[in-house]
């Protein structure tokens, strides 16, 4: 998603956020989001296009806006089922053939060139090359001047062509795949590309869907089809899709199935679909659960029949195939400023040259006609005297200016952009290959999705972390329950006698849940005893609710033992899974779920319940409910949801004690860091049910505002509940999280946790992740109005100031932030943030947050997460990083300077939006402290070095121009000028940019404070730039003037001295790099010495071409001792100042990095053992 869609979220948000409840929406998406229903729909109950749930605001708000839009005729596409001819006669629907290739053979050249010239660098190249083609301006040979541009263009074009060829090839394979399509009442094999909208397609198990189809019928009698959407959103769990009851019964080959589908125009929303289908005069509504998208695979279903509605490039998957948003790194932004300086410098040089040239021309204007080396007059034309190649004074100046731009063009280091890209690719290669950032449990490597912000990783000051799935594993485990006011939390371990867990026998086959859950023996006993006692009946209802009130689909899997089958629960919410597994362990095993009923094995006795209605979870209600018809014809509603929302619909008059004790239990659960859900139920009278049923029917077939209608219906029935109890689910902390957070904080990175969870849960996770400590003073802001917000913020600021000044440290001191004696933690909830964000209170919140060493925001909506990130981003120059795993983190990830996605349980939306993706939170430590530090240091050095490298060469050319009547003659041959940045000096800097390490991984992890170097911008800043430029000036002067003075009034010819300058500059520049290389491995040696040797070879080759002026010059000059003496003198004299300054700095103003390097060098033997242990504790533990 790009920034545009972020903005649309905002607009939707603001449109809806008039009430505080509304703007709080999906606050609970983490806490109780697990009991969400996403794409589940029941055919006979109509469909609900709104997809609520844990995937948060991104898609949520989008689908709200979608559902509120009625399908107008002009916005709709009409699909005649099984009548492709009629379907396609009026509208030009695209066929199913896809074309991901960008070019055809004919369009390749123009289009590719057009795209390449979108880069400013290439346009600069082109302008220079074109200028050089003008005869007056031809500084370089024409061929030579085009060479660099042509080379870059060619390389890119070949790369593009190859990639396009591969795309074409895969398109061809894709287009020629076969699918069975109903033609003349028979299913026939047809190539994918031939499929048309309106055709009926039959897909068999494990086949890929060729286009977006609306399900008509499946092999399952209830019309369920399971699909795997891994190609679409990366989620590997099976999703259920439903065929409509009306079409289910028809057999396409026999019954002439006709009908009309009216659906929305193709769009990118893969979670939204809205349509109506008219079959047999009936109007049915279709939602996202009735459509299977191209790219999905059919699983666990023998076959499915559907009608194609979107084909080819109009399918949702094709519309979604775009890359991640691109960000620009901070260093590059700073660099652009320096590039402007360099441009100004270039202009200054050119102005100097042209002004001097003007003065010279003016002064010699009387001599020019016959001056042997100017000869303005041309006598060769018959007696006529005319000016030769002279266009007047003004134009000559102008030409001189342009020519000097051409000669000094590499002052703007265009090659730097190319080098930077190569370096980043190299850095990304090493980050991806880092074994310490490989997550074994999810089998995922580190991913670099954005290639242009590697170096930002070394400058992060703020980390905004999601909690669930990021700090915690998002693997839920049922821990304890409070039923009817009694706390059952004795399940400490799986006891011996029930090691095998609960199982049921069906047809002499054993059915066993896939996952075992710790059970409380007392509760287990109660559950087994059945409903005899009052206690027992409450327990019975409680577990029945757990087993029934969800959207879990049981899947039975064979094992090696033919008599044992495992039952696995597929669902999208891990909380629900945990609850259903728990219910199964206590003897309430969900066996079967179809659209109309569920089968639950209760203590070995199979019972069938009719599912009369189901209200999906949504973030307004923060609860879901199911209406069950019992075998004894009674009807009950079971509701589960977040405590706040549940207690508001509980009948307070009943069982006050139970409510009170349950509340107490809830508090204690959440302070243990457990996620809590409250479960309630109510008997429905027949009249109540009838009333609800008719309302529900109306709402679910409504075409306008169906979502809000359904919500209203649900709210009406979900009231006066009798509370059954509450469950506590443990959300396990991910491995290494406390250590990682500690490392990050030692490194001077502020870690803010933004979570949708409850305050108590958030605080308890804060303690267990060592974010909060007992020493800290907590400032908690829970306000319900703007005024109280203002007041608590002001109080907070005063308090935090007091506390931090008492302890005597300010929190701005780089690496030691939060090191005060009384650190302050700010805990703020989403409701308060509603009043603060986007108002004048933002500023005070920022101040307060800056004084605090920890900030914990709980119950925040996805957009508030982004709001908090932008709050910090707007007010500081510090870099921000957001890390998260779910769709609700997408906006935050995109807002932050660096977005990191965790490829974990919650699908891949966060990963898709992120710049970097990895498997575990703790990889943030090696990513930032090690790779970030390296990347930043390397890139910073490389940029400075590239500026220096090009400027020194330009200045040498410039000095010479001063001795040639300012006519831009170059002693250095054209070829060397061009090869200078391509061959002579490019490889070492790229290699050093990829490989050089200032410090070893071990030291960087041992002293996280070393990360401060990047935060303080130690490797690239203005001061360094100017120092480098002064050094450049000196070095170029030495390089130029030593030979000049040594060869003054000698017989030296231009080519020879040019060769001397070429070699001197190249050796100097490479030795300069060599002096700064911190780790010499064989590759560095090869690159640096190889470049120098390559330069010698190139110069020799150039001077062996008899048609060039400088023929044999290098051999003549190399024979003389003076040449070698000059070379040595240049190199030593040029490098001495830099060396002295470097030594003085390192010895007397040592940076932390420098000291750490020395420690590394001199103390490795003594300390290696200790470090090893420390490293293991932080890093090496993941092996499981």
């Amino acid at each position, binding site marked *: 998603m790009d920034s545009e869609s972020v903005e649309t979220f905002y607009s939707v948000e603001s449109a809806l956020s008039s009430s505080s409840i509304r703007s709080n929406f999906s606050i609970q998406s983490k806490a109780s989001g697990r009991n969400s229903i996403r794409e589940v729909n029941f055919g006979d109950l109509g469909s609900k296009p709104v997809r609520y749930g844990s995937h948060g605001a991104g898609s949520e708000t989008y689908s709200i806006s979608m559902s509120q839009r009625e399908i107008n005729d002009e916005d709709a596409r009409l699909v005649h089922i099984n009548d492709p001819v009629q379907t396609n006669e009026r509208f030009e629907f695209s066929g199913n053939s896809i074309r991901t290739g960008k070019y055809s053979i004919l369009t390749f050249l123009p289009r590719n060139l057009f795209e390449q010239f979108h880069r400013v660098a290439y346009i600069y190249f082109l302008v220079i090359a074109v200028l050089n083609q003008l005869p007056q301006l031809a500084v370089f040979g024409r061929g030579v001047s085009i060479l660099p541009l042509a080379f870059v263009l060619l390389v890119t074009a070949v790369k593009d062509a190859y990639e396009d060829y591969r795309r074409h090839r895969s398109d061809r394979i894709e287009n020629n795949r076969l699918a069975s399509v109903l033609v003349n009442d028979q299913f026939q094999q047809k190539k994918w590309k031939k499929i048309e909208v309106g055709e009926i397609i039959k897909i068999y198990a494990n086949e890929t869907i060729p286009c977006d189809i609306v399900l008509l019928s499946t092999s399952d009698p209830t019309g369920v089809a399971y699909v795997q959407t891994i190609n679409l959103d990366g989620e590997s769990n099976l999703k259920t899709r439903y065929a409509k009851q009306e079409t289910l019964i028809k057999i396409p080959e026999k019954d002439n199935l006709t009908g009309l589908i009216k659906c929305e125009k193709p769009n990118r929303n893969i979670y939204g679909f809205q349509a109506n289908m008219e079959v047999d005069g009936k109007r049915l509504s279709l939602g996202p659960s009735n459509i299977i998208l191209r790219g999905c695979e059919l699983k666990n279903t023998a076959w499915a029949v559907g009608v194609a509605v979107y084909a080819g490039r109009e399918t949702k998957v094709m519309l979604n195939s775009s890359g991640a948003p691109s960000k620009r790194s901070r260093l590059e932004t700073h660099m652009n400023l320096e590039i402007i300086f360099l441009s100004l410098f270039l202009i200054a040089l050119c102005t100097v040259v042209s002004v001097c040239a003007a003065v010279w021309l003016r002064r010699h204007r009387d001599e020019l006609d016959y001056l042997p080396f100017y000869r303005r007059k041309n006598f060769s034309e018959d007696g006529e005297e005319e000016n030769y190649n002279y266009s007047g004074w003004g134009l000559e100046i102008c030409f001189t200016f342009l020519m000097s731009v051409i000669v000094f063009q590499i002052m703007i280091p265009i090659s730097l952009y190319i080098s930077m890209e190569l370096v980043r690719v190299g850095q990304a290669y090493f980050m991806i290959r880092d074994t310490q950032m490989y997550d074994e449990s999810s089998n*995922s490597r580190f991913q670099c999705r954005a290639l*242009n912000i590697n170096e930002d990783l070394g400058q992060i000051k703020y980390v905004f972390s999601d909690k669930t799935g990021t700090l915690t594993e998002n693997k839920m485990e049922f821990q304890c329950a409070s039923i009817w006011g009694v706390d059952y939390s004795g399940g400490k371990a799986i006891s011996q006698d029930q090691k095998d867990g609960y199982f049921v026998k069906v047809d002499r086959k054993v059915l066993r849940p896939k996952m075992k859950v710790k059970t409380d023996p007392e509760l287990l006993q109660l559950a087994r005893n059945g409903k005899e006692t009052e206690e027992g009946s409450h327990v019975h209802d409680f577990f029945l609710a757990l087993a029934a009130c969800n959207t879990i689909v049981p899947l039975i899997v064979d094992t090696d033992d033919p008599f044992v089958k495992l039952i696995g629960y597929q669902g999208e919410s891990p909380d629900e899974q945990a609850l259903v597994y728990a219910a199964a362990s206590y003897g309430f095993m969900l066996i079967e779920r179809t659209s109309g009923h569920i089968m639950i094995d209760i203590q070995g006795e199979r019972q069938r319940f009719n599912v009369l209605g189901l209200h999906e979870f949504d973030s307004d209600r923060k609860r879901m409910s199911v209406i069950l018809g019992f075998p004894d014809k009674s009807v009950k509603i079971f509701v589960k949801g977040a405590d706040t929302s549940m207690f508001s619909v509980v009948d307070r008059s009943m069982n006050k004690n139970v409510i009170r004790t349950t509340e107490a239990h809830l508090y204690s659960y959440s302070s243990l860091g457990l996620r809590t859900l409250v479960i309630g139920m109510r008997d429905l009278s027949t009249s109540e049910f009838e009333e609800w049923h008719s309302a529900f029917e109306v709402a679910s077939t409504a075409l306008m505002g169906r979502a809000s209608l359904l919500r209203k219906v649900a709210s009406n029935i979900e009231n006066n509940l009798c509370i059954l109890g509450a469950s506590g689910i443990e959300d396990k902390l991910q491995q290494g999280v406390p250590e990682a957070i500690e490392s990050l904080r030692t490194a001077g990175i502020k870690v803010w946790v933004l979570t949708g969870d409850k305050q108590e849960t958030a605080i308890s996770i804060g303690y267990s992740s060592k974010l909060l400590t007992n020493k800290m003073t907590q400032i908690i802001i829970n306000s319900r109005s703007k005024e109280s917000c203002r007041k608590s913020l002001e109080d907070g600021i005063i308090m935090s100031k007091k506390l931090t000044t008492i302890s005597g440290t300010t929190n701005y001191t780089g690496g030691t932030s939060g090191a005060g004696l009384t650190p302050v933690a700010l805990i703020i909830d989403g409701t308060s943030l509603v009043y603060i964000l986007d108002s004048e209170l933002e500023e005070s919140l920022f101040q307060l947050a800056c004084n605090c060493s920890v900030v914990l925001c709980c119950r925040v909506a996805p957009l508030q997460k982004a709001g908090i990130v932008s709050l910090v981003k707007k007010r500081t120059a510090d870099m921000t990083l957001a890390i998260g795993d779910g769709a609700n983190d997408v906006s935050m990830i995109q807002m932050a300077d660096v977005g990191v996605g965790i490829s974990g349980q919650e699908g891949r939306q966060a990963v898709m939006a992120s710049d970097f993706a990895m498997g575990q939170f703790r990889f943030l430590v090696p990513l930032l402290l090690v790779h970030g530090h390296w990347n930043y240091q390397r890139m910073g050095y490389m940029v400075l070095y590239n500026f220096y490298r090009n400027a020194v060469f330009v200045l040498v050319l410039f000095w010479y121009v001063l001795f040639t009547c300012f006519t831009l003659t170059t002693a250095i041959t054209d070829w060397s000028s061009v090869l200078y940045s391509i061959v002579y000096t490019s490889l070492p800097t790229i290699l050093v940019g990829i490989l050089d390490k200032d410090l070893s991984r071990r030291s960087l992890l041992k002293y996280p404070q070393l990360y401060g170097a990047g935060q303080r911008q130690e490797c690239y800043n203005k001061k360094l730039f100017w120092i480098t430029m002064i050094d450049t000036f000196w070095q170029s002067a030495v390089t130029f003037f030593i030979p000049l*003075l040594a060869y003054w009034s000698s017989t*030296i010819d231009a080519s020879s001295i040019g060769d001397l300058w070429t070699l001197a500059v190249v050796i100097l520049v490479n030795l300069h790099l060599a002096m700064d290389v911190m780790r010499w491995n064989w590759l560095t040696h090869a690159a640096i010495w190889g470049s120098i040797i390559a330069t010698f070879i190139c110069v020799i080759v150039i001077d062996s071409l008899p048609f060039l*002026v400088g023929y044999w010059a290098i051999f003549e000059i190399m024979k003389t001792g003076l040449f070698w003496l000059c070379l040595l003198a240049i190199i030593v004299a040029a490098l001495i100042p830099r060396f002295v300054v470097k030594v003085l700095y390192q010895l007397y103003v040592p940076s932390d990095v420098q000291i750490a390097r020395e420690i590394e060098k001199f103390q490795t033997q003594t300390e290696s053992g200790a470090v090893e242990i420390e490293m293991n504790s932080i890093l090496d533990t993941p092996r499981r």
Partner: protein
Amino acid sequence: MDANGATTSSADGGGSNSKASSKKNSRKPKYSRFTQQELPACKPVLTPGLVIATFTIIGVVFIPLGLVSLSASEHVVEIVDRYDDSCVPPNYSNDKLKFIQNADTNKSCIRILPVPKLMKKPVYIYYQLDNYYQNHRRYVKSRSDKQLRSKSAANDISDCTPEDKTKDGPIVPCGLVAWSLFNDTYGFSLDSKMIQVNKHNIAWKSDKDHKFGDDVYPKNFQTGGLIGGAKLNSSLPLSEQEDLMVWMRTAALPTFRKLYGKIDEDLPANKKIQVEIQNNYNTYSFGGKKKLVLSTTSWIGGKNDFLGIAYIIVGGLCLFLAVFFILLYVIKPRPLGDPSYLSWNRTPSGGQPN
């Protein structure tokens, strides 16, 4: 600027990655010292010892080198005689241009050069021009190296304007460089005895063998409206016109010498050499100076003290720096790799946050 490229490539990378994952079961990166960036490497740290040693070595190497260069330069005996002014007869001294442009004036001129020291053979004869921009862009480009090389390229004169062709056809050798060929001549005599000037092998062998063709003969040279300098013997191929070759190796700097010839005998000290100069070349129009130079040679080339002095200065500076760093090290040593110098250990109130 490179947003497009980067995103597409990253997207592609992601795609191929996911494909790879389905093929392989474990995507764990293979361990190698290269991929983990742990190649064996040398980590130089600038210890005081290393720094002092570096400066000492440079100093120790540079000062002798400087002394050797200086002495080599000292051993070169050089006679420089500026003659452009003195060789103009007094009656023309106000209008030197007229003198030089007039074909009928007597251009010969006698100069007496005392030999300060014994000049061992070979003694090189140079002419030196000052303020003459042989590196001027218009001038440098106004030549045709192809034409010089082979007969067939006689018409390759596109770069040679305004000296490209006459009515009779292309000029060989064309261009301003050849056109402005130096044409002063020198005759030497010692004690009224002519000294033989050896004008062979004054050009580079490579020029004779490859750059200037042995089948290319001067044609239409200096026949145009304006005579720039020397004429060439049109019966000799260019490969034997060594003066031209020397001249066409355009000088790098505005003050330059060109080899005129060699004297293959010793010139004894305190003798006076008489030089008869044909002062033909016009440098008066732009105030250029002409000098005649007789010089012996050494391994360092001609007489030039600059490099020797530079070496001694650099060497001296390095020795000074070596001493400076020794003193610094003695007075204010800093133990290398002492963790207490780390910034977070220095601040008293600092310490590890918990």
